[in-house]
C-alpha cells in the first residue's frame, strides 16, 4: 500500500511523515505497526492477566501454516505475552504452537522453517503432527494411517474436492490435538480477507450452514472455542506489516507465499478457494470496507441451538433439521437411494466432495 499522500504527516501521531496509506489514512511506520498490534490485542481481552491466576495457566493452541497470517499472529502474541510478563510478572495465557505436516511441503523445507520459528519464539511449546494422524485408531502404526489417507485421497477426483477434504481433516486433527493437550481454545490466524473468502467459498460448496462457526468467535460444535484475533486486519495490511517489524517476518514464511494468486489455466485444476482468494485480493484493493462488512454481517448468523442432531461423518458438524445427504433436494435426481444416503451420513456439502467410495474410507 504505497503512500498516496506523499509528504503527508501521519494522521495518528501528527509528527512523523507517513510511509503508507491505510484505509485512506496516511500513517507512519510506527503508528501502522501499533495499529495492527492493537487490533489483535483488543481481541484477546478475555485473556488479560487479571483473568488468570498465578498457578493455573490457560493454554491456547495456535496452529501455524507458514502463511502470512498465522506467523504474524505468533509474532504479535509473543510480543504481547512478553510485555504482559514484564508489566505484571504473569502471563494471561500460554501458547502452544502446532504445525500440521501435509503432502505439500518437503521435509527439508519444513524443518528449516520450523527451526527459524523455534529460534525466535522458542519460549513457547512447539509440536508438529502429520495430517495422516487423523486416521490413527486403535494403536495402528503411522504407515497404516498414511496408507488409509492415501486411499481416501485417491477416490477424490477433482482438485477442489481434494483441497476441501484436506482442510476439513486438518481442522478435525487440530481440534483433536487441542483436546488431547488440554488447550482451552484455538487461535486461528484468519484475516478479515480470509474470513470473507471463507464466507463465499463455504457458501459455494453448499456449506452455508457452517458459517456461524467458521467466521465468528465462540464455542464450536466440537466443544472447544474458536477465536479469530486477526479478524479486524486485512490481508494486505498483514503483508505490509511483515517487514516493518524487526527482525522482519518474511524469511519465516513458506516459499512463494507472497505472490498474487493466479488460478491454474484449466478450470479442472482450479479450486473454489483459489477463485475466492483471487476475487477478494482485487476487492480488498479498492473496497476494503466491503470486505470487512461481509465478515461483520455474516458473523451475526446464529447457530441453531438444537440438541439431538446428526453429525456429518466427514466434517463432524451438526446438520440442522437432521438432513444428511441430498435426498432429491432441488429436484436432484439422486444416483443413490434415500437409504444409501442415510447410511453414508454426509452433510450436503460433504456429499459433493466425497462419493460413495470415499465415504467408506473416512476416519
Amino acid at each position, binding site marked *: 500500500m504505497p503512500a498516496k499522500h506523499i509528504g503527508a504527516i501521519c494522521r495518528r501521531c501528527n509528527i512523523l511523515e507517513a510511509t503508507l496509506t491505510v484505509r485512506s489514512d496516511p500513517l507512519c511506520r510506527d503508528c501502522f505497526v501499533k495499529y495492527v498490534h492493537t487490533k489483535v490485542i483488543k481481541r484477546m481481552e478475555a485473556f488479560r492477566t487479571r483473568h488468570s491466576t498465578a498457578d493455573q495457566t490457560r493454554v491456547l493452541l495456535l496452529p501455524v501454516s507458514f502463511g502470512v497470517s498465522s506467523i504474524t499472529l505468533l509474532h504479535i502474541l509473543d510480543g504481547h505475552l512478553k510485555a504482559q510478563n514484564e508489566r505484571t510478572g504473569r502471563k494471561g495465557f500460554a501458547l502452544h504452537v502446532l504445525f500440521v505436516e501435509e503432502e505439500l511441503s518437503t521435509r527439508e523445507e519444513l524443518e528449516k522453517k520450523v527451526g527459524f520459528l523455534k529460534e525466535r519464539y522458542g519460549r513457547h511449546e512447539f509440536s508438529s503432527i502429520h495430517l495422516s494422524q487423523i486416521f490413527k485408531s486403535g494403536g495402528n502404526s503411522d504407515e497404516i494411517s498414511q496408507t488409509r489417507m492415501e486411499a481416501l485421497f485417491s477416490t477424490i477426483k477433482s482438485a477442489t474436492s481434494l483441497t476441501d477434504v484436506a482442510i476439513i481433516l486438518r481442522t478435525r486433527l487440530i481440534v483433536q490435538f487441542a483436546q488431547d493437550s488440554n488447550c482451552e481454545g484455538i487461535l486461528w490466524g484468519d484475516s478479515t480477507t480470509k474470513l470473507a473468502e471463507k464466507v463465499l467459498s463455504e457458501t459455494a460448496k453448499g456449506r452455508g450452514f457452517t458459517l456461524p462457526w467458521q467466521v465468528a468467535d465462540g464455542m464450536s460444535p466440537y466443544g472447544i472455542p474458536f477465536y479469530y484475533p486477526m479478524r479486524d486486519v486485512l490481508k494486505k495490511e498483514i503483508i505490509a506489516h511483515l517487514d516493518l517489524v524487526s527482525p522482519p517476518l518474511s524469511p519465516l514464511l513458506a516459499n512463494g507465499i507472497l505472490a498474487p494468486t493466479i488460478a491454474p489455466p484449466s478450470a479442472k485444476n482450479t479450486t473454489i478457494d483459489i477463485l475466492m482468494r483471487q476475487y477478494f485480493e482485487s476487492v480488498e484493493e479498492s473496497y*476494503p470496507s466491503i470486505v470487512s462488512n461481509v465478515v461483520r454481517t455474516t458473523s451475526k448468523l446464529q447457530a441453531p441451538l438444537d440438541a439431538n442432531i446428526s453429525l456429518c461423518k466427514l466434517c463432524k458438524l451438526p446438520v440442522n433439521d437432521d438432513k444428511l445427504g441430498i435426498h432429491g433436494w*432441488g429436484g436432484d435426481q439422486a444416483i443413490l437411494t434415500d437409504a444409501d444416503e442415510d447410511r453414508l451420513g454426509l452433510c450436503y456439502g460433504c456429499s459433493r466432495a466425497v462419493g460413495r467410495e470415499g465415504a467408506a474410507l473416512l476416519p
Partner: protein
Amino acid sequence: MAPTPCELCSINRALILRPKNHQKLCKTCFISTFESEIHHTITTTSLFHPGERIAIGASGGKDSTVLASVLKTLNERHNYGLELILLSIDEGIKGYRDDSLETVKRNAQQYDMELKIVGYDELYGWTMDQVVEQVGKKGNCTYCGVFRRQALDRGAAMLGVQHVVTGHNADDMAETVLMNLLRGDLPRLSRSTSIMTSTPSAAAAAVPSQTKPSLTNIKRSKPLKYAYEKEIVLYALHKKLDYFSTECIYSPEAFRGSARTLIKNLEAVRPSAILDVVRSGEDMAKLVPGYEDTCAGKCAGSTGAGAVEEEEAGCGSAAGRSGGGEMSKMEQHLTRNERADEEELEIEIKLPIQVEFLKDPANDAIPLRKKGRKGVKSASTPQSSGKPVTKQTMGSCENCGYLSSQKVCKACVLLEGLNKNRPKVAVETSTDGEIVSMQQAREELPGAVAQMSVDQS
C-alpha cells in the same frame, strides 16, 4: 469420437452433456428429466392447488417461454387443474419492447393460453417514453425500476389473479445469494431464498363504497428456482421453443455483475456449485436472527417486505444503470461509518436501542431489523442513510394500497412528481438543463443499452 449411449435409457445416442452434473443424455431423456425435476419442485413445495388461476410473467425471453411451456405440459400430464394466463408488461418504449411483445403474442397462440398485456399507461398513466420526455435520460431508470417492480402484481390484481409465477432460475437465485452476502444484507438474503413470497396489492375489484382499495395477498413463486440457466437454453433449443433474446447488461461495478462473474467461474470449477450456493442460501436463511420459521418457506410465510424491494432482473438496462458505481458508493458509506466509530463520535441518539448498541458493539443479540437498512451501524454519522433507525414496519400506501414502509409508496411519490409537472408541449428540459426531445431519447436508449454491454465485457 465414438457415439456414447444415453446414460439413462442406454438406447439413444447421447447428444446433451447436462450442465448440472455432466450426465450424458439423449434428447428425449433430457427433456423428460428436466420436466420431472420441475414437477418434483412443484409437488414438494406444494406450490399450487387445484383450480388456481396462475399468471405467468411473460417477457418473451427464454426463462418465461420455457416456464410457460413446462407448466402447460405438466399441468396436462399431472392434472394440476390450473388455469394458466400469460401476463406481459409493456413499459411503452417504442422499438425496445415491440419484438418481445410479438414473441409473447406468438407464445400465446403456440401454447393456447390467454394473454393479457398491461401497459404502464394503464397502470400508472405514463409510458416510459413519456417519462423520458419529462425527466430526461438520466433519471428515467429509477422510474422504470420502481414501476416494473409493482407492475406484475398490479397487473395480476387487475386480472383478479392471486398467484404470479416468474422465470427466475437457479443462476438468478445463486447470484442473489452471493450479491446479498457481498452487500452484507442478511435480511434480504433470507427473504430471497424462499420459493414463494407474497405482496399485498390493491384488489382488482375494490368494494365500490370504500374510498380506499382493499388489500389482497398476491403470491409470487419461482417454479424454475432449481433449473440451471444453461439447461433452460438447451430445453428451449431442443424443443424448438420460440423466444426473443437481448444482450444481458450488468455493470461489473455493481454487486450483481460481480456475483454473476463469480457464479460463472464457479460453475466451471464444479457444475453443482450453482445449486450448492442456493442450498447454502436456504440454510443460512434459517440462521438469520429474526427469521420466521413458518412452514419452512413452503407457504407464503414471510411478510412480503422483501417482495417490495425484490430486484427485477428482467430489464438489463435498468439494473445495469442503477448498479454502476454501487460498490464505490457502499465503500464510501462504510468508510465514513468506520471512521466515526473509531473516533467515537457521539451523535445525537434518538432511540434507546442505539445507546445499547454503542455500549457493547460485540453484542450481536440485537435483531437486524432494528438497524439501518443494510444491517450496518447506521445513523452514526449525520450523512448516512436519511431514514431514522426505526423498526421497519410494513404498512400500505395511503394512495394505492401497495405494500410500503412509508406512508406513500415510491411509485406514487414518483407519479405525484410527474403529474404535477405534466407539460402541455411535447418538448421539455430535463433536470440538468439539457433539452431532450422524445425522439432523441427514444433513438438513443437502445444505443445506450448496447454501449453498456461493451463497457461490461
